[in-house]
């Protein structure tokens, strides 16, 4: 027997578990379903094509094995160049991201207008896809790894600039305020309070950025911006699927090593710094 009766004004109100959705949410849901069905056609989803393509896939996959090692040397050289592009691009990008982030972070920006402009630049850089940057740099500085490296630098600034700024904003202001009260200079406060406070986040972001750069530098070659991508495109176009398989395997090894190394580095660096 319940303690409360319906007429009891003190009875707690228990809402029904399901509530009838409003007409607006029903309409939005119906619109979404409709749009999704239309998009299936727009995206060219076609089960018959997939089924027709299956034998092709099997043939190509069959031709991929065993992977061909006849061009192993130029391919491995291209893999090395790919990694070098990623490494140089990331390091320069990370170094340039720090001042950008300082201008973009609420607690370090000299003026709201500077902050707004820097944020807009970083957002723009990030929104433009890396292949578009690569095309732009290939046209500007010519084919080759330099265009790819410039692409990675810009891409890293778009990625790190944003996350570094957020990391700076999240640092507990206590230490900075304490040092401000004794008349220290802003540069010193950034060096001793802000950067050490944000360091775990900075290291994490930089290492993720390196992983991202390695993955993206692999495809930059497709538009002529240096690295292994060009080799892969040529092999596929020449129907040398066995060579392509070797390249894909080499890419896998590179990405795997970089990711493994970066997670090990992350753990060690975070423990060491004091």
């Amino acid at each position: 027997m319940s303690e409360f009766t319906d007429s009891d004004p003190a009875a707690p109100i228990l809402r029904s578990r399901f509530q009838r959705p409003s007409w607006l949410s029903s309409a939005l849901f119906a619109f979404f379903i409709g749009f999704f069905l239309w998009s299936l056609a727009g995206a060219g989803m076609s089960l018959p094509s997939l089924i027709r393509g299956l034998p092709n896939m099997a043939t190509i996959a069959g031709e991929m094995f065993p992977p061909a090692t006849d061009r192993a040397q130029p391919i491995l050289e291209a893999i090395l160049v790919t990694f070098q592009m990623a490494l140089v691009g990331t390091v320069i990008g990370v170094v340039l991201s720090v001042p950008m982030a300082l201008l973009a972070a609420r607690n370090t920006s000299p003026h709201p207008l500077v902050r707004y402009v820097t944020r807009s630049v970083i957002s723009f850089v990030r929104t433009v896809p890396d292949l578009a940057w690569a095309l732009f740099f290939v046209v500007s500085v010519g084919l080759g790894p330099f265009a790819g490296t410039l692409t990675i630098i810009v891409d890293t600034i778009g990625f790190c600039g944003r996350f570094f700024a957020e990391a700076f904003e999240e640092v507990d202001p206590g230490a900075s305020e304490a040092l401000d009260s004794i008349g220290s200079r802003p540069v010193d406060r950034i060096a001793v309070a802000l950067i050490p406070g944000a360091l775990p986040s900075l290291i994490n972001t930089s290492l993720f950025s390196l992983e991202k750069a390695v993955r993206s530098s692999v495809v930059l070659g497709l538009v002529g911006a240096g690295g292994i991508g060009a080799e892969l495109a040529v092999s596929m176009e020449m129907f040398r699927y066995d060579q392509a398989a070797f390249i894909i395997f080499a890419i896998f090894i590179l990405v795997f090593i970089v990711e493994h190394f970066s997670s090990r580095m992350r753990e060690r660096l975070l423990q060491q710094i004091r």
Partner: protein
Amino acid sequence: MSQILQPVFQTDQVASATASASLQVDGLSKCFKGTESAVFRDISFDIKEGQSVALIGANGAGKSTLLRCCVRLIEPDSGSIRLSGEDLSGKSGRALKKARNRVGFVFQKHGLVPRLSALTNVLHGNLAHDFGPRNWSQRLASQENRQRALECLDQVGLADLAYQRCDQLSGGQSQRVAIARALMQEPSILFADEPTASLDPQSGEVVMELFARLSQSRNLTLFFVSHHVEHALHYADRILGLRSKQLQLDSASHSQSTTSLREFYV
């Protein structure tokens, strides 16, 4: 009771204050933007060199604001401040910062950089006088400054934890490192804003004992805000009470009692 409601200015303090005043505050008022009423109005007091002064008052009475206004960390609306005889009123930018470099400040939260060692954090106190990478880390510091930082840690009893990361220290130890950092500045006056508020009672006592000892051994002027009536009575020579936007008590601590001071918290 009447002693509390009407300010009791002890004549001996006022007479000798001008001779060796560490801090002279005259007619200080503050009103925050967007609020109608003032935080406090027309506050005047002097603190002699080597004196230990407690500032008490209820939450929201404006104690912390008053403390910060004394070094213009918060800008007062009117009034004048003299720090060791030097007028702070007209100063701006670098001159004001220079004037502040002999003022040690210990906050309720220690304000240390958690990832760095105690020694490095203490070394940062030197940024009050110097700048540049040689003050950023104990690894980059001069032998002389490293030695001095270690001595400061020794004075707060933590020399053996010099290389410990600050995020591995207890609340009380962290606050003592913050005091060591203030000592590194070689301050002539030490401000403390509720330095024991986030500590357990025992650690709070240790920190207050330390303040008292340092104040005596270094002839350091101490100006602290406290919620602990007992701390004010025990560790201060003199107690200032802030209530109803005014300084309603200025009295030697030995002439006060727990009961009389509790009036400030109702």
